[in-house]
């Protein structure tokens, strides 16, 4: 077995209200001795290759070309000159592999709308998660307000709502998301919060999140159920109100190997089914492989909130649940807001129903992440060390008032890892640093991943994939 001698580069630190000053990030985990990279394509080769280009400019040109190509099939005849159009986007797209591909897809959608319809009243509406300034920061970073001629705006769930009558009653969207004659749903397919969407209607989710006000989001997270919550965005999208405005959706295709392409469709139901197949193909083996690791130390080193930090295209949140097959819809998973609620302490209020967080995680070292996501569950449940200035950020996080009461502060990354190694008693280390196309890992874990991959591949092909497809009403023969 051969491992690489160099490592994939981590996502660059981000100057943001939600992060420590990049100058205070003293060391990236990948620069510690004894680390290497494992490419997703080496573990599980797939037919479709990621989009690559020699320079960022050429990458942008390639994304533009692919966006224009997929938009050719979209019928825009009903849009008249003077009609208003809102392009609905979400924060996460602007963070995927630096965000440039998503931003270029959005710019191209705008340009093509103006070219083909003559309308110039094209607005950008950028939704957020729980960090209300985040998309404003991205709008500035990518110069989108200038590009949209002063019509780019960050929207948040505490903004004014608009009533949307659905099959189960009135829910509320953010008024400014829907304040145009037409809307375009511009999003991304990556697996991201599998613990929430469970790959059931994943492409609909922003209709109950980024484009929705607080009660609808709260219903999703606290008052429906860990699977059934995904009905909410579907119902909002199906409502007469949204259907009268909906033009098409356009998705940046993302997989563990990187940006895979761009896909537009006027039929979100059909597009969701296609992406369900693709996500099972692209992520099924990677996630199953992570679930096969028995002992590991995790290092978080990415400019996003803890559960959204990325390795090999999947999240820390996915790894926290990797002891359970999250694609198997029969199962409840350890970390969702529905289970999180039941842990006032280390033991759940209801015994023997919820699986525990992935017991393979022996320690977590938090070198770098964003504030602005309630995550007291993590240090409560896992031995968690926080490095340097990052500890101060967490101490002053209004969404994590209890976090540092359970975590340990350590001066440097090296010291934290030494300490973690001593009590975790494993040389397997996995870094969540957003590297594109694979994992940055310790040499020991690299060997382990390569050793486990063939067996995982066979198990997914022969046993799990047919079950995942069947649960989602998809015929196995449609998968290639």
């Amino acid at each position: 077995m051969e491992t690489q001698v160099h490592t994939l580069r981590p996502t660059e630190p981000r100057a943001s209200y939600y992060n420590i000053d990049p100058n205070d990030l003293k060391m990236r985990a990948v620069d510690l001795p004894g680390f290497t990279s494992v490419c997703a394509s080496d573990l599980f080769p797939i037919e479709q290759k990621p989009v690559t280009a020699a320079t960022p400019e050429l990458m942008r040109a390639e994304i533009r070309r692919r966006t224009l190509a997929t938009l050719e099939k979209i019928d825009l005849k009903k849009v008249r000159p003077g009609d208003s159009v809102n392009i609905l986007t979400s924060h996460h797209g602007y963070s995927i592999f630096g965000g440039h591909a998503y931003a270029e897809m959005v710019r191209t959608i705008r340009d093509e709308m103006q070219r083909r319809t003559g309308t110039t009243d094209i607005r950008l509406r950028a939704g957020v998660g729980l960090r209300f300034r985040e998309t404003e920061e991205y709008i500035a970073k990518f110069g989108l307000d200038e590009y949209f001629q002063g019509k780019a705006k960050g929207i948040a769930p505490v903004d004014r709502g608009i009533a949307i009558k659905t099959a189960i009653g009135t829910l509320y969207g953010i008024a400014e998301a829907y304040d145009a004659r037409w809307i375009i749903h511009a999003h991304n397919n990556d697996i991201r919060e599998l613990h929430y969407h469970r790959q059931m209607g994943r492409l609909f989710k922003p209709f109950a999140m980024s484009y929705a006000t607080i009660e609808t989001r709260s219903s999703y997270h606290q008052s429906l159920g860990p699977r059934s919550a995904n009905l909410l965005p579907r119902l909002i999208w199906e409502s007469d109100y949204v259907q009268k405005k909906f033009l098409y959706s356009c998705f940046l295709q993302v997989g563990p190997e990187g940006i895979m392409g761009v896909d537009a469709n006027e039929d979100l139901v059909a597009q969701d089914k296609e992406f369900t197949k693709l996500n099972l193909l692209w992520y099924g083996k990677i996630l199953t492989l992570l679930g096969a690791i028995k002992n590991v130390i995790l290092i978080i080193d990415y400019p996003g909130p803890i559960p959204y930090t990325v390795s090999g295209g999947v999240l820390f949140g996915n790894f926290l649940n990797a002891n359970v097959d999250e694609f198997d819809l029969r199962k409840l998973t350890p970390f969702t807001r529905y289970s999180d609620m039941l842990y006032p302490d280390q033991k759940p209020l209801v015994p023997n129903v919820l699986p525990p967080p992935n017991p393979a995680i022996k320690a977590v070292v938090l070198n770098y992440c964003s504030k602005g996501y309630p995550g007291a569950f993590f240090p409560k449940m896992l031995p968690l060390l926080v490095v340097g200035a990052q500890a101060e950020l967490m101490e002053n996080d209004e969404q994590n008032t209890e976090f540092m009461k359970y975590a340990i502060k350590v001066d440097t990354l090296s010291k934290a890892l030494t300490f973690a190694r001593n009590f975790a008693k494993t040389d397997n280390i996995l870094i969540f640093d957003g590297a594109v196309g694979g994992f940055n890992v310790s040499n020991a874990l690299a060997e382990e991943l390569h050793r486990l991959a063939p067996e995982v591949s066979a198990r997914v092909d022969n046993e799990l994939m047919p079950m995942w497809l069947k649960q989602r009403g998809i015929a196995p023969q449609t998968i290639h």
Partner: protein
Amino acid sequence: MPQVNHVAVIDYGLCRKCPFCVRACPTNAISWDANRDPVVRVEGSKCLDCTICMTRCPHHAISMQARNAPLTYGVDWTLADPKEVTRLCHAAHMHPEQIICFCRQTMSREVAAAILLGHRTPEELSIATGIRTGCGVLCITSVLRLLKAAGIEDLKAPGWQWYGTYATIWDLPPEAFERYPEYFLKEDLEAANELYPRAD
């Protein structure tokens, strides 16, 4: 009892007197009155440092600044009748020790006790217990469910912050179960009844 050490402060050189912060504040700590100067004002005793006003102000006119002395908040749930607290939580399908505000780690029994002690609106409950003063998003339906379980349903929704309409697994119409079997509604209702107390 928990404390906060910061308070929202308005820079009147930047403030344009728009009501955005007033609408965004979960504790009604910010008020707007055209007949006074300044028009927009922060009542420090109600500000629990959620930062929502600061991060939604279109003009970047609000900052969080250190308090002279910490502000203590929280409700001692034992001051209410423990049996009534439990009854109210169960009526809302909650365990008394269930975490319903992930940011402040507020338990349902604290909010139930606050209701029994006379707090009647989401805003009053936020000031008393700290709930809804972190992310400001995830826990509103749990607050509304507890208020409804206490028989308080005639609230005037302020808009923006909340509108008073939401969905729960226990209230879904039967036709939804038949029409959308692929969303595991039946299975989640069974799971909910196993994980959370029944209303009766």
